[in-house]
């Protein structure tokens, strides 16, 4: 391979820089064995290594024996850990940034609040369907006040129909049935219809907010906003 020969220049070309220089890597052939025992000349003495005495540091500069200090790791491990920490921080910041990117600051969805006319225009005992098509909400007036039912079947989300002759809400999809107050009594639906917030706007009109919901099964129908007390004309 052309790529290999660039690195492993064989024994023909002696590399100028042999960084390894270890005696263990023998690229050359094995030395020939000699039959005749020859007195090998004595090896020259290896040069004496002269060590100048290390100047001793003052006692207070030396760490106590065996004590690794407060870090308990050497410099190499510290730098390695710091490197990994930096990398993971970058990854974490990228993930958080990417997640944040997926949630835009401004949405173009229709508002959930709407005004529903004046309370006096509602008939007591009536289920008002004026806002069923545009807002998906029924507004019911009783003697004591108002509540608003969200026209989404709690089974699988179809829009039920109000059947005044039978005094019930009936879902055309799978036959779920609800009483006038929204409680389920027949069909596959597991829970009552949800109620939306009802209040009074500044100009006296009813104010409905579909984003604030009240569920009967969580005992929320008594909470403020789920019912508007109104006994006026």
């Amino acid at each position, binding site marked *: 391979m052309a790529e290999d020969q*660039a690195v492993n220049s064989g024994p023909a070309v002696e590399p100028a820089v042999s960084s390894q220089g270890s005696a263990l890597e023998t690229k050359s052939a094995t030395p020939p064995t000699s039959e005749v025992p020859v007195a090998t000349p004595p090896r020259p003495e290896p040069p004496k290594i002269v060590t100048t005495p290390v100047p001793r540091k003052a006692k207070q500069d030396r760490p106590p024996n065996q004590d690794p200090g407060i870090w308990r790791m050497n410099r190499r491990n510290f730098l390695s850990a710091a490197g990994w920490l930096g990398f993971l921080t970058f990854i974490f910041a990228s993930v958080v940034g990417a997640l944040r*990117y997926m949630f835009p600051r401004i949405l173009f969805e229709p508002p959930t609040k709407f005004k529903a006319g004046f309370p006096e225009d509602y008939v007591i005992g009536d289920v008002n369907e004026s806002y069923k098509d545009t807002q998906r909400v029924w507004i019911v007036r009783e003697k004591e006040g108002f509540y608003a039912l969200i026209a989404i079947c709690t089974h699988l989300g179809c829009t039920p129909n109000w059947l005044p002759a039978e005094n019930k809400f009936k879902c055309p999809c799978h036959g779920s049935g609800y009483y006038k107050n929204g409680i389920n009594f027949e069909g596959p639906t597991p829970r009552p219809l949800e109620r939306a917030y009802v209040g009074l706007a500044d100009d006296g009109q009813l104010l409905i907010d579909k984003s604030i919901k009240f569920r009967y099964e969580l005992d929320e129908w008594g909470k403020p906003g789920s019912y508007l007390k109104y006994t006026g004309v």
Partner: protein
Amino acid sequence: MPGLMEKFRKTDVYKSIFRHSYQDTQRNRALQIVDNVFLHLHPVRVGRHATNLSYTWGMGGITLLLFLVTIITGVILMFYYRPAAQYAYEDMKYLMNDVPFGPLIRNMHRWAAHGMVITVMLHMFRVFLTGSYKPPRQFNWAVGVLLLVLTLMLSFTGYLLPWDQLSIWAVTVGTNMARATPLLGHEGPFGSQLGMRPDNDVRFLLLGGTQVGPPTLLRFYVLHCIFLPLVASVFMAVHFWRVRKDGGISGPETGKRTS
């Protein structure tokens, strides 16, 4: 803490992900590269001359990096951009003002794209200066030229997508040049003889109409995001493969190498 790491390294989960240890043998080193899907496209070893930046400039690798940056930022941009004339400009404004990190992603995409054009030019220049187009590398040079054309086409198609004045007029001018193509353009030589008209020539093919309009935007979007990147990836694979097979990155003559 170190004990925990050791125990973790012995678990089956770890061993199934990291299949080779860090044993420093020739065999193990090769296995770590060859058995990794991301690394094995690269040879196990490279000559030391390959790291000589003053000779190689590294522009080919940088081009690849910029390509990856454009792909990643491009995909991220696709979450908010709609290629319809009605929405394109509005979505670009939305990205710049109402999406967290939107400006960062869009600008990164733009910078990487511009940068990539510059680096392919520098790469081509370097290859020429070092004679790395000579045998056996002639075919790879041709593939490189093709990649250059694809890069420029990617830039051209991407430029239309913000659908602002700059985009529309740039594409108008570019495609008006197309109508003068010989044989294929309705205003080019021999075009009319071959039955080329404004509604069936190569300019029509590019524009999806007789003028720059919504069909053009959609067409350029598909070219920019799917077709051209796929074709470029295929040719890049050929290009990198040929580098390996032709003997790795070229360096000075073996006798003259300083390392």
